[in-house]
């Protein structure tokens, strides 16, 4: 990596020539833009420098502070507030907000402290895990818009959430699962303790009265474990039976019920053996596996109120030429809505006034903003970039294109090809097999030796207690998911790892996945004596005066001179005076015309070229493109080395996709694809027997991500993409993909080894038990050893190769920095 300095606040590279800095804790720190500078000063000025000491990652780049009325003012309307603000009595109101970019404890601390400094705010609760905040305030002292504006200026954009959702379904699910897990855990420990007494007694002899005592207390403790903790398995089994299919829950429930009933029977009839320890342990480990899976899923889905984050909460309705802010829900068909540059289109509609360029990349994957004029349609969720427009609403709410994509996603997910989960399948069949064997054993012994019949039958059931089998998958998955999360790949669905191991084809979206998803100056080709940086600075000085989307590519470039006499020539470029020099920037023909030279030749390679020139000659050619991520090429090479077929499916223009595909050496690609087209392509591959991994980031990718066998969404991508994907790439990097596939393959291998071991252990012990040769202590030791072996084998997954270990930023290190 290059040693380019990065912004102290947001971590973005500092554009060359930018000289802003802030003084934090007596040391001068560089920042990248006015916004970051303002926030850093705000934070230090309020005595909140602690934030920088304890945050775990760079902060979000704040919005440019603007004065005057803004979008937040609308939130003072009672009609809008009724959804997320409630009266909590004593003259106080409580607002529930969903907050963007809330990533660490220091962020929540900063939010709490900056809000508490506002007059009238009495209580602030921020939960970084769910991305939600509850603020109590006195409405006569502070307005909701002030609260929201304060957050937005710090770089944390707030969204209103229904007050009822403050305690989300996910939270309730997690709490219940945690309670069940702990009951099973405590129960397991207790019963194990009693079991040690029983096993020990089997060796050395034990008074009947103590034997009875230990059995009865084991029963007492195992009962809540079975009926409270294991309840989800029974419910699942009932559901499966009603739907007339045999899932994993049926044999598991059956095994638990039989082992428990047999133990109860033995306790009551003063029999030979009880198996409460096996039952509780089985329940605990199964629950543990499910809890870890659920926690990963919640983490991936956290902070996703998909529609609120895409469609704005308010719109400007135009009535008799006057604009008024209304809630989006209030919009009706035929209303005229004004959308200013920088705002998001609130509903599908047709432009009735003005023309502009709209960024639809979230919906279509098109990397460049699309021109839209009078009479053309625009879709909700796209961003207006250039000029103010007015549109007549044609579809709202559920009927918008955005919602349609959501529905397409639902369907794709329900049609996701079912991948037989090897481990579950084997474990399920295994339990059924054991039950059959037990029945056969009982049938064999019953006519011959009725006393021995029950004993041997139960011995078969217990010695084959699928502890090792039940553990085989969960422990391996836990170890692998834990490791991958540290590497930056979050697995959100349980079957992701198993499917990932079988992947044959990888299909990439282009914009925002292979590339960074924003236009930047990719290459500067000086034509005269002026070097690249100087040319960039001159072009940037002119572009500062433009609202054109191309100007955005220069937003990061530091301007040393200011331009004046700037005029915009539509469709051609800009002309102006910088440091006494007459300059043009724009299309090569337009620039060459200033000096009377012929337009410089440009290579046709998918990027768009603009030129810079003065009155003597053209000075430089600048290539604008959506830049490839720095790691893309090496990651693709690694994937190819793993024997995978690579493809691109993009909604962007043919030239742009072809150029990227050529640079990356990918032969198969599709351009101008709609979400439905992409889904069709995936289905084609699947029909030909391929197992497809889809990697994408946008709303338009969501159905495809849902429909592929396994999918990964970029961490920087849209929330909808992340919720539909089975994995999320944390951070801005594709790099963990290759490691993910390697680990997934290793995981499958280890699961197979574990199952193989558990099965062969049972192949030896079941016949012994059936013959009545196995004493309890032998069974106990054998069972423990086989479980231990399985756990140790799975531990191999969480070991990393040495060179991969990078020093974690520990609190100690930060403390050292701070002092």
């Amino acid at each position, binding site marked *: 990596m290059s040693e380019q300095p990065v912004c102290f606040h947001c971590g973005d590279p500092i554009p060359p020539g930018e000289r802003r800095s802030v003084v934090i804790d007596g040391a001068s720190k560089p920042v990248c833009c006015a916004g970051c500078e303002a926030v850093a000063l705000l934070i230090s000025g309020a005595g909140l420098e602690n934030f920088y000491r304890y945050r775990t990652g760079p902060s979000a780049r704040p919005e440019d502070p603007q004065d005057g009325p803004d979008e937040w003012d609308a939130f003072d309307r009672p009609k809008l507030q009724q959804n997320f603000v409630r009266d909590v009595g004593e003259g106080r109101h409580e607002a529930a907000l969903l907050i963007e970019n809330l990533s660490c404890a220091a962020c929540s601390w900063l939010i709490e402290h900056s809000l508490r400094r506002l007059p009238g705010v009495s209580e602030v609760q921020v939960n970084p895990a769910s991305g939600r905040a509850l603020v109590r305030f006195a409405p006569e002292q502070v307005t909701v818009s002030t609260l929201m504006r304060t957050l937005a200026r710090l770089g944390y954009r707030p969204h209103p959430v229904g007050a009822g959702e403050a305690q989300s379904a996910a939270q309730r699910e997690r709490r219940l699962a945690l309670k069940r897990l702990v009951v099973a855990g*405590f129960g397991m420990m207790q019963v194990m303790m009693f079991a040690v007494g029983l096993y020990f007694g089997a060796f050395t002899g034990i008074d009947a009265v103590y034997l009875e005592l230990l059995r009865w207390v084991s029963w007492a403790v195992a009962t809540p474990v079975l009926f409270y903790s294991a309840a989800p398995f029974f419910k699942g089994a009932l559901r499966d039976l009603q739907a007339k299919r045999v899932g994993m829950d049926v044999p598991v429930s059956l095994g638990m019920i039989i082992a428990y009933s047999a133990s109860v029977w033995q306790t009551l009839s003063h029999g030979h053996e009880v198996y409460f320890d096996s039952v509780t342990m089985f329940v605990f480990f199964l629950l543990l596996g499910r809890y870890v899976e659920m926690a990963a899923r919640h983490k991936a889905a956290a902070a996703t109120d998909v529609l609120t984050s895409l469609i704005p909460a308010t719109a400007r309705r135009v009535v008799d030429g006057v604009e008024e802010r209304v809630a989006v829900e209030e919009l009706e068909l035929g209303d005229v809505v004004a959308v200013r540059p920088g705002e998001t289109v609130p509903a599908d509609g047709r432009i009735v006034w003005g023309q502009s360029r709209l960024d639809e990349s979230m919906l279509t994957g098109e990397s460049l903003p699309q021109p839209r004029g009078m009479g053309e349609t625009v879709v909700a969720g796209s961003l207006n970039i250039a000029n103010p427009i007015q549109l007549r609403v044609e579809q709202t709410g559920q009927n918008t294109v955005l919602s349609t994509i959501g529905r397409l996603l639902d369907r794709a997910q329900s049609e996701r090809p079912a991948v037989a989960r090897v481990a579950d399948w084997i474990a399920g069949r295994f339990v059924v097999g054991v039950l059959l064997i037990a029945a056969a054993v009982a049938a064999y012994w019953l006519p011959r030796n009725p006393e021995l019949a029950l004993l041997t039958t139960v011995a078969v059931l217990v010695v084959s207690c699928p502890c090792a089998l039940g553990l085989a998958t969960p422990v391996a998955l836990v170890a692998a998911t834990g490791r991958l999360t540290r590497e930056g790949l979050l697995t959100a669905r349980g079957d992701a790892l198993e499917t990932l191991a079988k992947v044959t084809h990888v299909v990439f979206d282009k914009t925002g996945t292979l590339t960074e998803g924003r236009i930047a100056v990719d290459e500067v080709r000086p034509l005269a004596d002026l070097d690249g940086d100087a040319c960039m600075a001159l072009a940037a000085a002119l572009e500062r005066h433009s609202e054109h989307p191309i100007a955005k590519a220069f937003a990061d470039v530091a301007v040393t001179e200011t331009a004046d006499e700037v005029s915009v020539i539509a469709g051609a470029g800009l002309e102006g005076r910088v440091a006494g020099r007459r300059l043009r920037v724009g299309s090569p023909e337009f620039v060459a015309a200033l000096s009377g030279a012929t337009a410089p030749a440009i290579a046709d390679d998918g990027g768009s070229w603009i030129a810079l020139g003065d009155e003597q000659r053209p000075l430089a050619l600048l290539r604008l493109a959506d830049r490839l991520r720095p790691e893309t090429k090496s990651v693709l090479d690694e994937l190819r080395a793993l024997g995978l077929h690579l493809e691109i499916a993009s909604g962007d223009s043919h030239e742009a996709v072809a150029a990227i595909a050529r640079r990356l050496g990918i032969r198969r690609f599709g351009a101008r694809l709609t979400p439905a087209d992409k889904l069709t392509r995936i289905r084609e591959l699947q029909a030909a027997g391929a197992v497809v991994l889809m990697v994408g980031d946008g709303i338009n990718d969501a159905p495809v991500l849902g429909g592929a066998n396994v999918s990964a969404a970029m961490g920087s991508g849209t929330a909808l993409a992340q919720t539909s994907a089975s994995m999320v790439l944390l951070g801005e990097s594709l790099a963990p993909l290759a490691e993910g596939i390697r680990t997934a393959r290793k995981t499958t291998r280890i699961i197979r080894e574990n199952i193989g071991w558990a099965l062969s252990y049972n192949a030896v012990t079941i016949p012994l038990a059936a013959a009545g040769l196995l004493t309890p202590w032998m069974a106990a030791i054998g069972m423990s050893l086989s479980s231990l072996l399985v756990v140790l084998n799975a531990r191999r997954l969480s070991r990393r190769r040495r060179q991969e270990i990078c020093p974690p930023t520990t609190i100690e290190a930060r403390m050292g920095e701070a002092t």
Partner: protein
Amino acid sequence: MEILFFMIPMGIVLVGLAVWAFFWAVGNGQFDDLDSPAYQILLDDDQPAKPTPPERPES
């Protein structure tokens, strides 16, 4: 060894108490966020706001 008839039920009662305490803690939201409290202790409230507001940069 008769003491076992007292000790074992006592042990179960204690475990019951522990489970009850845990349920209360879960219901109280103490397990909802396991990451930030670790930092909370390091973030002091004892730095007063500086008396003069900082100069806002031109923007």
